[in-house]
């Protein structure tokens, strides 16, 4: 039985068409994925379902369980919002009110739709919080969102969605802001919720891997239209549309292994970095934050070393110590035998995570790239900068552009050009592609391996994305709580992980192959069962 039927949906903001004639069906209890890159109209579709657009013009039909939503009165829509169709939003911190406890917010929604007593609503809130595996739900219901971790907030939002027993849950990029292991937990939870409550799931994501394991059918969107739709297994294994093929091709995949036995170029010996605690709570001495704890490793000349870990594991701190931006609390970081912090400029460079905030918005990108050259005493670096711009796939005219005039991918190319400018021997990349769409990400990764080969560079590649690291790197170091728990050849670590944390990480990686995704879910459940 069809629960949601969208026909020829069009959403436009003034002149811009965000959604341009989209149609799809979702069966009761089914799971549909809506996949596309940023700007494809995924989120606009989700908001249009519930009539949540402010200043958009809508046309087409959205039939939900016999009710036509595009023409429904505000009153009727309000009754459906939350009770018939429940949304799970992307940013769980801002999506919950900071002034009310998690339990109160869920109870308020329940009371609104059922007219239950305060007590009954409170009980329901605790019940659904338990349902999404929040430990000790009766007590945690009294906590505020900021007292929850990112994963718990997302669980709380899912609990809120469950509160009124909706027939459809719309999850808009529910895992984008989360670490890979937490992402896997949330996706598993959504799957579990769907099977136990019978609510249908509309999962919106830019990540094919996310959709692969959690949906039965999929709609691939581009520029507001569906370019391909069908069963998830068919679309992701034998795609027909060229765009779907491009998307799948852009998904990072393992490259044939290289063995690099070069001399150690960068040596880290017993490196620690401790930060003073954020603030003193009492007069007693408080624990320091141990960002990096006793790291010893070598970066060999000519290799690409991956550093993987989740947020808060000290990846960025380690990367900054490698280029000498911050000094270790103890231990040494030497580059070709000398302390890296004493070397000026040239031989070690860095590519930063966010190309927008790491470029000066008031200067042209050419000037930003020219800076390191001027530091080296080059009086007129313009021609050299233009060569670099061409090398990273931009035009010489980009010299006079400002960062905000470029796209995210172009800005990251500028970041790479700036790092290349002083002819370094080692480049440390800190999450260089994590803010990019999957196709742009593939292009930037290709560029990085091109320049590595061409300039004979050594790369350190810091990332939370294990698939990307597997594609780019020769060896990998797994970081957990500031310590390297596993270090080895990429193929070796990925095929035969030794440390439990590495195993957990690898099981959590989303894959675009639906079969494999299902297998990994089983693996995760087995791991979780083992632990408990």
């Amino acid at each position: 039985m069809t629960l949601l039927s969208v026909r020829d949906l069009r959403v436009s903001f003034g002149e811009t068409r965000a959604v341009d004639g989209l149609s799809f069906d979702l069966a009761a209890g089914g799971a549909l994925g809506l996949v596309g890159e940023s700007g494809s109209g995924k989120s606009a579709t989700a908001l249009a379902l519930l009539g949540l657009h402010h200043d958009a013009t809508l046309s087409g039909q959205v039939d939900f369980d016999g009710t036509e939503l595009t023409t429904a009165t505000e009153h009727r829509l309000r009754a459906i919002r939350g009770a018939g169709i429940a949304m799970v939003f992307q940013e769980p911190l801002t999506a919950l009110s900071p002034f009310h406890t998690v339990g109160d917010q869920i109870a308020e929604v329940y009371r609104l739709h059922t007219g239950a007593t305060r007590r009954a609503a409170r009980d329901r809130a605790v019940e659904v919080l338990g349902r999404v595996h929040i430990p000790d739900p009766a007590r945690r219901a009294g906590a505020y969102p900021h007292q929850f971790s990112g994963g718990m907030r997302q669980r709380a939002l899912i609990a809120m969605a469950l509160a009124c027993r909706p027939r459809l849950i719309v999850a808009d990029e529910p895992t984008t802001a989360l670490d890979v292991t937490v992402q896997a937990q949330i996706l598993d939870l959504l799957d579990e919720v769907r099977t136990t409550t019978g609510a249908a799931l509309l999962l919106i994501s830019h990540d094919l891997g996310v959709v692969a394991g959690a949906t039965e059918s999929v709609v691939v969107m581009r520029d507001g239209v569906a370019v391909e739709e069908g069963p998830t297994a068919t679309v992701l294994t034998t795609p027909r549309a060229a765009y779907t093929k491009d998307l799948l091709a852009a998904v990072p995949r393992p490259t044939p292994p290289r063995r690099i036995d070069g001399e150690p170029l960068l040596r880290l010996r017993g490196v620690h970095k401790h930060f003073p605690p954020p603030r003193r709570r009492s007069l007693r001495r408080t624990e320091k934050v141990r960002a990096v704890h006793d790291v010893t490793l070598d970066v060999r000349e000519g290799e690409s070393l991956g550093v993987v870990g989740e947020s808060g594991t000290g990846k960025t701190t380690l990367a900054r110590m490698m280029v000498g931006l911050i000094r270790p609390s103890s231990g040494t970081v030497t580059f070709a035998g000398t302390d890296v912090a004493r070397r000026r400029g040239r031989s070690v460079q860095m590519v930063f995570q966010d190309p927008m905030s790491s470029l000066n918005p008031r200067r042209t990108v050419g000037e930003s790239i020219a800076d390191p050259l001027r530091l080296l005493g080059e009086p007129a670096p313009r021609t050299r900068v233009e060569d670099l711009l061409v090398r990273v796939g931009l035009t010489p005219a980009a010299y006079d552009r400002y960062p905000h005039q470029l796209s995210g991918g172009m800005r990251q190319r500028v970041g790479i050009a700036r790092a290349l400018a002083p002819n370094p021997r080692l480049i440390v990349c800190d999450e260089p592609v994590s803010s990019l769409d999957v196709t742009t990400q593939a292009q930037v990764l290709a560029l990085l391996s091109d320049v590595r080969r061409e300039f004979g560079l050594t790369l350190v590649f810091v990332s939370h994305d294990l698939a990307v690291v597997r594609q780019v790197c020769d060896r990998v170091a797994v970081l957990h709580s500031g310590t390297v728990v596993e270090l080895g050849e990429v193929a070796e670590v990925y095929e035969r992980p030794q440390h439990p944390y590495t195993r957990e990480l690898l099981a959590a990686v989303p894959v675009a192959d639906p079969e494999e995704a299902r297998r990994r879910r089983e693996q995760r459940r087995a791991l979780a069962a083992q632990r408990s």
Partner: protein
Amino acid sequence: MIGYLLRRVGGALLVLFGLSIVVYGLFYLAPQDPAVLTCGKGCTPERLAEVRAAMGLDRSVVTQYGEFLRGLVLGRDYPAGPDVRHCPAPCLGYSFETDQPVTALLADRLPVSASLALGAEILSLAVGIGAGLLSGLRRFRLLDRLVNGLVLAGYALPVFLVGLFLLMLFCVQLQWLPFPTYVPLRTDPVAWAQNLLLPWIALAVIQSAAYARLTRAGVRQTLAEDHVRTARAYGFTERRIVFRRALRGALVPLVTLTAVDVAAIMASAVLTETMFGLPGVGQLLVGAVNQIDLPVVVGVTLLTGFLVVVANAVADLLYAAVDPRVQLR
């Protein structure tokens, strides 16, 4: 929490201590001699020396200040002719001018200032939040413009102009209200409110303008936040969103500002008090400064400082109370 309060009290004492030193010091830098004023015209040098000794001005500044501090904590004895006058702690001394204990003077004036401040604040909050909310909702464009205009006007108008206008209109032209005098709340609550109504309005014109702006900005900001979108997606009515979410967000900066404002009015509504003939703390200070009445000046300054310090602490506590993300450490 207790640690926080202790540190807060310690800080407050330091501030008050510093303040008293500064006031004492400034006073002795002033070119006029209070003894000359007290002695009056046709004062002989012998008589002047006597007066000076009686006022304690013949000793060094440091000694005087030490005596003052001792009096504040332990009380002190004053020679009065053959007898000794005991001034119990906290002793702020006796007014040079009226010979009354400064503490008594302050206790006399404080209820007047408090009546003025609290009434004005309640009125300002009611008007300010109401106007700010209406204009923040974007639904009434014209009203938004109107409120904005009035807010600007409120900022621009000096209180004595507003006060004069109110007096002219209501007491002279329309004769709806008597010329204000202060009637204590306990004596006659109706007369108390009647007499204070105009000063409240005069202060509220300016104060409510600030609150309206703050509320408007707060409401606008909160309405644009993600959690409001969540509320909409879960079927909340606009009204519920405005009152349960937007106003809640706007309340945070408002609450802290209010606490500080109450103290500010109590201590420094000099113009308003003078205009409406209210015998408040501000008026006392002006008179004392004109007469170089050192004990009174120091007393009022310390009281003002005390109020401001307390208000700031209250503001912090309230801030933590209305915003669960804030932790006092």
